[in-house]
């Protein structure tokens, strides 16, 4: 049991005070007054922090109210049920068309042959080896040898990877900089989905980086799109699709990519 749950534990063992509910109600009723007093009396940094908090809360509240109002409004039914022709058994059904639109967009694009070779980011800035690798000099023997490298960029490491013995490990890929998932955007639909990475297909900087699974801007990765429900012309579910990394993951702490269609 976590140590901080002592109140719950106590209440489970011995129950609540007899006037517990009454006290809670009163505290809640006082809250408005307490807040108002705080807002009036606080000065300096505390006042600033308090104001900021209140501001955020108010925005949230307004949003909620607006959403509530919208829910109550009865909208007039659309005159034309859908712009694309549908058979009558699909006419009255609201459909999740995202994945569907995705697959047809992909098919349309495939018709254009040249599209195969164009990627959203055709050029990337070079990264020098000094920036990519840090020479590991810790330890008595390693410092003498000086061939051990630490990769300073985010990497993708396959699920079944185990590190080699220290003696033979030339490149260290830090655990903290490993990624398993990417936020993949479909360029035409603007739909973004978080998908598992299957592998690094090409790092434009250096074939070695491809091998190491380094994720830099412009890297082509393969992502698992099975949950999107895309289907090939043969009726099979599409599993892996390629995407290109669009941000600098080492600066942002997340991995954004755009699907190659």
């Amino acid at each position, binding site marked *: 049991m976590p140590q901080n749950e002592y109140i719950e534990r106590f209440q489970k063992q011995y129950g609540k005070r007899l006037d517990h509910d009454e006290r809670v109600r009163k505290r809640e009723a006082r809250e408005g007054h307490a807040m108002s007093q705080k807002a009036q009396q606080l000065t300096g940094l505390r006042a600033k922090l308090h104001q900021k908090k209140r501001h955020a809360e108010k925005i949230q509240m307004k949003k909620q109210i607006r959403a509530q109002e919208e829910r109550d409004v009865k909208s007039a039914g659309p005159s034309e049920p859908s712009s*694309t*022709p549908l*058979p009558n058994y699909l006419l*009255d059904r609201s459909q999740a068309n995202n994945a569907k639109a995705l697959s047809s967009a992909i098919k349309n694009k495939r018709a254009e042959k040249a599209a195969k070779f164009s990627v959203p980011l055709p050029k990337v800035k070079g990264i020098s080896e000094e920036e990519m690798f840090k020479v590991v000099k810790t330890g008595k023997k390693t410092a003498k040898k000086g061939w051990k490298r630490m990769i300073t960029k985010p990497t993708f490491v396959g699920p079944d990877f185990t590190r080699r013995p220290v003696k033979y490990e030339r490149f260290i890929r830090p655990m903290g900089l490993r990624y398993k998932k990417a936020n993949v955007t479909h360029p035409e639909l603007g739909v973004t989905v978080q998908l598992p990475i299957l592998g690094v297909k090409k790092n434009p900087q250096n074939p070695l980086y491809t091998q190491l699974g380094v994720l830099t801007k412009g890297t082509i990765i393969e992502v698992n799109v099975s949950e999107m429900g895309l*289907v090939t012309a043969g*009726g099979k579910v599409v599993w892996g699709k390629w995407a290109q990394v669009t941000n600098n993951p080492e600066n942002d702490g997340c991995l954004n990519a755009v699907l190659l269609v």
Partner: protein
Amino acid sequence: MATIVPPPSKRQKIAATEKAEREAEESRIPNGLGSIRIQFVDQGTGNAAGPSVAIDVQQATVKNLENLLNTLQAKDPSERTPYRFFFNASKTQAENDTTSILDIDRDIYSSILKPGLRTVEDNIVLQYAPQAVFRVRPVSRCSASISGHGESILAATFSPATSSLLATGSGDNTARIWDCDTGTPKHTLKGHTSWVLVVSFSPDGKILATGSMDNSVRLWDVKTGEALGGPLKGHTKWITSLSWEPYHQQAQGKPRLASASKDATVRIWDVPLRRVEQTLSGHKGSITCVRWGGINRIYTASQDKTIKVWNAKTWTCLHTLTAHAHWVNHLALSTDFVLRTAYHDHSLKLQDTASTEAKVAQAKQRFESAARVNGKITERLISASDDNTIFLWDPSSFDPNSNATPKPVARLLGHQKQVNHVSFSPDGHYIASASFDNSVKLWNAIDGKFITTLRGHVGAVYMCCWSADSRLLVSASKDTTVKVWDVRTQKLKEDLPGHKDEVFAVDWSADGAAVGSGGKDKVVKIWKN
């Protein structure tokens, strides 16, 4: 260098497998069980076929029984009919309990003697039902891929008379008739001002009716492609379903047409006079499906969760079936196939030049033989719903005088998502249901027992359609494929990829020669063997 023996020819291979099968069959049935007495009874009429015969248990396979029955009926060797055999397992002979009927799939021993339902000393009564004497060969290739429509194809149907005419309705406001023999467009039927949602051939195959999003029904001459007058106006919302009066009940030259609409009414149109004969109102929601049965009944399914049964003479609502908990999506009758094809049968003996009386007689005879079960003419009804269930009804058993809501024969549970389409096999023994849960399920049409699930589609299945001999099934799906299933083995027979997008409509021609499909990719595909 040694000479390599040539591989066995096809004939040799077939002979070898047959021999192996026979041996396996014989070894499955133990020796020395003696003989059993079998009495054959027609499942339709209940009449006995000859006296009871004694037959060796070892020999009592379905194939041999078939031969025996054919001989008993003194049939010419050229006219031998394949049969399916059923066995009523209930102990009391008098009681006609349909729930305990067994289908004998291989031999008497494994289905009756081994489970201990009867011993070799009993007289075994076997019901037989003729199977189609012809065999539809599974379609396996795309014989034509015809573009022409400017928008998605929403409906497709073959002419009942021939497999060379296919009509499609599309989102480009036209319907088209295609010549399937040459794979070319024949007629473009222009006139509607919005999507054509339904197309339906009259049972004699001469008139095509189209229902559209523009709230009108139009009629077309199939031969010339000319419009027969203007639109039939009256509905205030779009047309969802069309159904023709059965051929054997039509007054001479005065066919009628029922159209169901989103506006919750069904209108009965007098086709030559082009006016509304009757409006059936009573539903509270959009009507999704209308069926004109062969025994003066009209069945309608609606999104108000009910099915109504109407009298087609007095236009009164006879029953309201309220078993479903959500929209009712589709209805099918056990006689759908014969009602659609009327006097056109596989033998094509009756030509269009035959007299009307002969055609009506043939249509009536075909209808009655299809609808007769245990000597009674019954039309069974099946309804698919958004509540993931299917109900099997027997409208002839409803008491017309009682006010109690009629009870269904069976509730077919198993689908995990909405069931979109159901259909009876032409011989009335199976039900196939297509659902949004990516599966097609097969059910026994007599008692509604689950038979199997046909899995293979990776998207919602929109439609399924039987071949004329009830041995094959074709399904169209959102996953862009059309698949052919073998009912006997319950396996995928052919996978037909080729469409580039969802397949909305599929139809198997009445003579089994071709399958037509169309969908979102605007292309009509004709599939043949």
